[in-house]
């Protein structure tokens, strides 16, 4: 075991996979000589050389598209989008190509690419360095979207993503990078993509969330425990396709469900979670399904007043959880 930050878990997973499999290579903007603007690829350029940690031109569609071509050839590219907000020029390559190649070729070709991108707010990143972009891709069969919440999950899930024979979008919360630290095994391990994870067992209310909000919810849960409110917390981990069985189980367990996302509310991942619950275990519910999310404005502002207003935080979680428990 070693204490590792969330971003160290990223670097460790990348390095171990590159050592394990020669076909794994990294491409993206500033990932090489600089080691990434967040230093996720620090040291890898020196260790593995230019063609395994390739500084690309400033062209997201080509980063994705060249990665897809290399993956079709048989490589295992790990493409970095410098910020999730800048994945937009690559949407055509991701949705029209990566997601559909296996299906359209009737299983002849496949695209084992991993696309990493830092997402999320609370870092004074303003409108274009703070967004959650998962819902743009969360209606595209053929894709998997992983959004880990802890260093341990990062290491196991990033390795799983790289070994996956289908395209995986891997979104890392940039505020978690240095904020979150925990013991992470030094051995090789993978965690299953497509499976949610219970982060806290509880019996009074169920919170379903993912990413940094898992921590906000856990912090709130500790406080509420003092008041005798016992929260069950399910971390989705993979937000597309969703782990329906785990969602149904967690919702049914307490009958009171709060869904949390940092994304704008309307059209976010948690809408689909609500739909799954309403479809499958409506009669187990003792309260309306509550949602806590960002407001429906284009993205979070830079000014600290407005940024704080937008962001989910432990206090907002605590209030929503208490309201639900008291329903």
């Amino acid at each position, binding site marked *: 075991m070693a204490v590792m930050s969330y971003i160290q878990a990223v670097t460790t997973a990348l390095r171990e996979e590159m050592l394990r499999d020669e076909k794994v290579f990294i491409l993206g903007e500033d990932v090489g000589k600089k080691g990434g603007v967040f230093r996720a690829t620090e040291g890898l350029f020196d260790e593995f050389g230019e063609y395994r940690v390739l500084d690309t031109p400033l062209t997201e569609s080509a980063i994705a598209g060249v990665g897809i*071509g290399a993956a079709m*050839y048989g490589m295992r590219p790990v493409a970095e989008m410098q910020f999730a907000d800048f994945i937009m020029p690559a949407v055509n390559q991701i949705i029209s190509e990566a997601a559909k190649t296996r299906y359209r070729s009737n299983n002849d070709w496949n695209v084992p690419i991993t696309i990493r991108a830092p997402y999320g707010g609370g870092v004074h990143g303003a409108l274009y360095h703070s967004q959650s972009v998962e819902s743009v891709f969360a209606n595209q069969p053929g894709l998997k979207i992983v959004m880990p919440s802890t260093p341990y999950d990062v290491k196991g899930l990033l390795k799983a993503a790289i070994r996956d024979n289908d395209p995986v979008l891997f979104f890392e919360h940039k505020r978690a990078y240095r904020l979150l630290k925990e013991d992470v095994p030094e051995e090789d391990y993978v965690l299953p993509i497509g499976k949610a994870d219970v982060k806290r067992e509880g019996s009074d209310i169920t919170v379903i969330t993912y990413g940094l909000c898992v921590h906000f919810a856990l912090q709130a849960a500790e406080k509420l425990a003092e008041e005798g409110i016992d929260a069950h917390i399910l971390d989705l981990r993979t937000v597309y396709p969703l782990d329906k069985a785990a969602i149904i189980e967690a919702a049914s367990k307490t009958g009171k469900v709060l869904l949390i996302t940092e994304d704008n509310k309307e059209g976010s991942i948690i809408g689909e979670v609500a739909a799954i619950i309403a479809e499958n275990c409506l009669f187990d519910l003792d309260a309306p399904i509550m949602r806590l999310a960002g407001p429906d404005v284009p993205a979070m502002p830079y000014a600290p007043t407005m940024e704080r207003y937008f962001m989910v935080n432990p206090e907002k979680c605590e209030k929503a959880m208490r309201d639900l428990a008291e329903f």
Partner: protein
Amino acid sequence: MTNRHKKLGISDDEVLNIYKTMLLARKIDERMWLLNRAGKIPFVISCQGQEAAQVGASYALNRNTDYVAPYYRDLGVVLSFGMTAKEVMLSAFAKAEDPNSGGRQMPGHFGQKKNRILSGSSPVTTQVPHAVGVALAARIEKKDLVSFVTLGEGSSNQGDFHEGLNFAGVHKLPVITMVENNQYAISVPFDKQVASENVSIRAKSYGMVGVTIDGNDPLAIYEAVHEARNRAIEGEGGTLIEAVSYRLTAHSSDDDDRYREKHEVDEAKKSDSLVTFGNYLKEENLLSSNLEIEINNELDSVVNEATDYAENAPYAEPEDALKYVYEE
């Protein structure tokens, strides 16, 4: 006195194969239009007018090692790379056995892994970065192969063209890009589409060699691709080739073609490569009347058999629609 193909190192047999492949492409294409007009297949999109470029280029590649990322008109490319008439017809009829997509995609959406034909989609130009990715993989793996990608001149305005070729140019990757300039992108003619005087001049933006070639001359195309391949293998990077011809049919079976004048099409037909290249072979005494009849008969029966087989082949089961979203 050696003739043109010998100078290029092409044997008499090989040059006849080029012709036969062009003719097969034409015959399959014509048959698909008939089938479409008879209501038997819902859609056709043509190679007619571009066979010379497609087959000439393909024969200059190493058809056992190189990768191709063709676009929807490239019947000549995929036939050269090993797809059979039967396989093409299975795709036209959308039958389960179609190796391109199992009947999932429209005809013209090629893909066949065993022949290193990358699977293609409908949104134009996405294949350019893919071909660059294959070339990058070849570089990383130190393999002596090139990737070959084609697109229309209209498609050369898409962002993916620029981003893909610039990426290849920065790393001098072994990718050959052939723009099949058939003068139109559906209804929009060249000058409302492409701001440069020609497409090949765009090579300068990518530090590449660029050449504009008569797309009705398979030997001229062969030569350009052959040289491009040599440069690529020598580590000198990619080449942008513009093959100029004319789209002899409407854009597709859904298009009525009213936006251009009949006499323009008639004029273009005079340079139809099937005729002009046939004449070359006749002048070189490689294509006697007898041989011509023989070849036509042979290819007609290939097309007939392919059609019959494909027409009678089964569709995929309805629930097959659920298969192969992810690895199974």
